[in-house]
């Protein structure tokens, strides 16, 4: 589904990714862990097509297409979804407007008809229930005045409504209370299917207790320096990153 080869990228003026390789197959869940500042969010932003992040080398192929040549909205319509580490507050743009406009843009791209108001509301209500979100959130500005945890939940609500093929979750677990973590994990798990892939960026094993990854990677210094199965996350939790870095340097 996603094939990243030797990716080099700048965040602003700074070279952050130094030859990153990653293969994600359909149906798989990957966890990316790594020290602060190692380039995890940069990778996520590059994949989502954020301006100000410049690819200086390598390639990214998604469903056989050159992902990097697509605009952010084309990527979204092709099924790429990024849950932001820091979701953006947009006062004056309704949450429900964003959900509807996003969903209809994606459906149109797929050659499907726009959803009517009733179908749409039924769908959104069902997903809000899954996320245990009050319906009053629908008519508030996007993330406006939401608490940290509410913002993260809202990201997953959007994901649940838009049903992407490739979901990139950047520290969606940070800032969540214990119950919310379970709710968010439920939301993510409900999306798991053989034709979808999920990439989780996280610092903690906790999330991986709920969403079991098939592969775990360590991103450090702008590269994947070690990959393993879920036991790698447990080991990192116990031992930190130094030993992996030393191993990679050797």
């Amino acid at each position: 589904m996603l094939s990243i080869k030797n990716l080099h990228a700048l965040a602003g003026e700074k070279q952050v990714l130094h030859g990153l390789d990653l293969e994600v197959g359909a149906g798989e869940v990957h966890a990316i862990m790594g020290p602060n500042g190692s380039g995890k969010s940069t990778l996520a932003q590059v994949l989502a097509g954020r301006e100000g992040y410049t690819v200086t080398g390598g390639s990214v192929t998604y469903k056989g297409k050159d992902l990097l040549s697509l605009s952010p909205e084309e990527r979204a319509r092709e099924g790429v979804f990024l849950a932001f580490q820091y979701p953006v507050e947009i006062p004056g743009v309704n949450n429900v407007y964003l959900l509807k406009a996003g969903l209809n843009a994606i459906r149109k791209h797929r050659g499907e008809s726009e959803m009517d108001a009733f179908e749409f509301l039924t769908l959104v209500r069902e997903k809000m229930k899954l996320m245990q979100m009050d319906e009053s959130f629908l008519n508030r500005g996007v993330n406006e005045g939401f608490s940290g945890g509410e913002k993260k939940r809202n990201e997953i609500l959007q994901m649940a409504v838009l049903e992407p093929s490739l979901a990139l979750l950047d520290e969606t677990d940070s800032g969540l209370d214990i119950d919310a973590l379970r709710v968010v994990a439920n939301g993510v798990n409900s999306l798991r299917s053989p034709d979808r892939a999920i990439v989780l960026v996280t610092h903690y094993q906790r999330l991986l207790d709920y969403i079991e990854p098939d592969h775990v990677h360590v991103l450090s210094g702008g590269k994947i320096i070690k990959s393993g199965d879920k036991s790698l996350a447990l080991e990192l939790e116990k031992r930190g990153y130094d030993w992996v870095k030393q191993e990679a340097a050797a």
Partner: protein
Amino acid sequence: MSAVDAKATAAPVERYQAAFDARWQGNDELTALRRAALDRFLSTGFPTQRDEAWKYTNLRRLETRSFTSADASALDAHQPDWLTTTGTRIALVNGHWLPALSSQTAQPPGVTVLTLKQWLQRDPAAVASYLKEHDQLTGNALEQLNLAFFEDGVVVNLADNTILDEPIYIVHQSTTAAAGRMSHPRIVVRAGRNSRATIVEHYLGANETEYFTNSVTRFEVAAGGAIAHFRVQQEAPRAFHIGHIQTRLAKDARYCVHDIQLGASLGRTGITGLLEGAGSHAALFGLFAPMGNQHLDAHTHLDHIAPHTTSEEDYRGIAGGRGRGVFNGKIIVRPDAQKIDSRQSSRNLLLSATAEIDTKPELEIYANDVKCSHGATTGQLDATALFYLRSRGLSESDARAALIRAFAESILSTIDLAPVRAALEKQIDERFKLANEAKA
């Protein structure tokens, strides 16, 4: 000054004199008033940028045109989109009343709605004395021009304690027959004690037609009265539009205006609020959105004459293309006017590198026990928010339109007349979607 300039400034004097002589003869009291007003206009001429109140708005383009008085005319083939369909509608087409397009519902007792001409027919002496009292000494050059040339308008009288639930909707439509013509509509609203009414003014024009609208709207609100005023300027793209609003507020009277400027090549509204009675309150909400080569100027002047008076102003400007916007907010607090609370905010959004908005708060405070705050910001669309919306599948133009609409929404959401609010939201969406597509 070069010789060329001298000639050009002499020209409008002759042109307006000729236009006047062609339209108004006779020696009755009103014509004499008109003539005196024309003389005052001709002696000062159009305001220039040396005049502090016109610092950012150059009327040169208007000055070089020669407009003559517009005649009564039928409507062009297509009907305008009404802003609201309930209540009383009075249509002025090219400055003249068009009964066929107007619809008068039965007014509750205590409410009189007349055209200015009807009032003139009934009581010319009253009209003359009203105009004398209110216009002769006050009023800038362009208000004098209106007094000299006005054809018709609307007069609303509300008796004490009259509550009017339905709005009075005044449509100013310019048609293709208005090409090269000017109209000077005049609205007079006199609201008695504890009376309440909503006045909607809507200015529209036929595409491709160049014309000049120079309107005067006056409110006198007696003690405890309340007026809600919606003024939507959607003139044709080549039009010139200057609007003057003057409101006098007695004790505990309230005036709330929504000053929306979307149309015209060169447009300006000047709002003067005189807070003459203690406890009176003026609330000014404005939205101006110059695109292309438009120049739109929102000029406000609030005079806290009495103590315990309050005012709030919230203006937003959105400029794209080579559009120019101006917000000027003057607030005067008189020496004896203690316990004043006044708040002014001007926020502006620039959509292109060639757009410009000048904002100028002017506070003149002569009393010491006052609370006056003002703030102005100018910025661009938030790139992070744009990316966030696009990352959810919205096209760049939809994402921009959503953010622009959100910016305008803080003004539009204060409009409690649902059909007007809905019509304006639609206008704003279409306007900026179109602009974005043209840009792409």
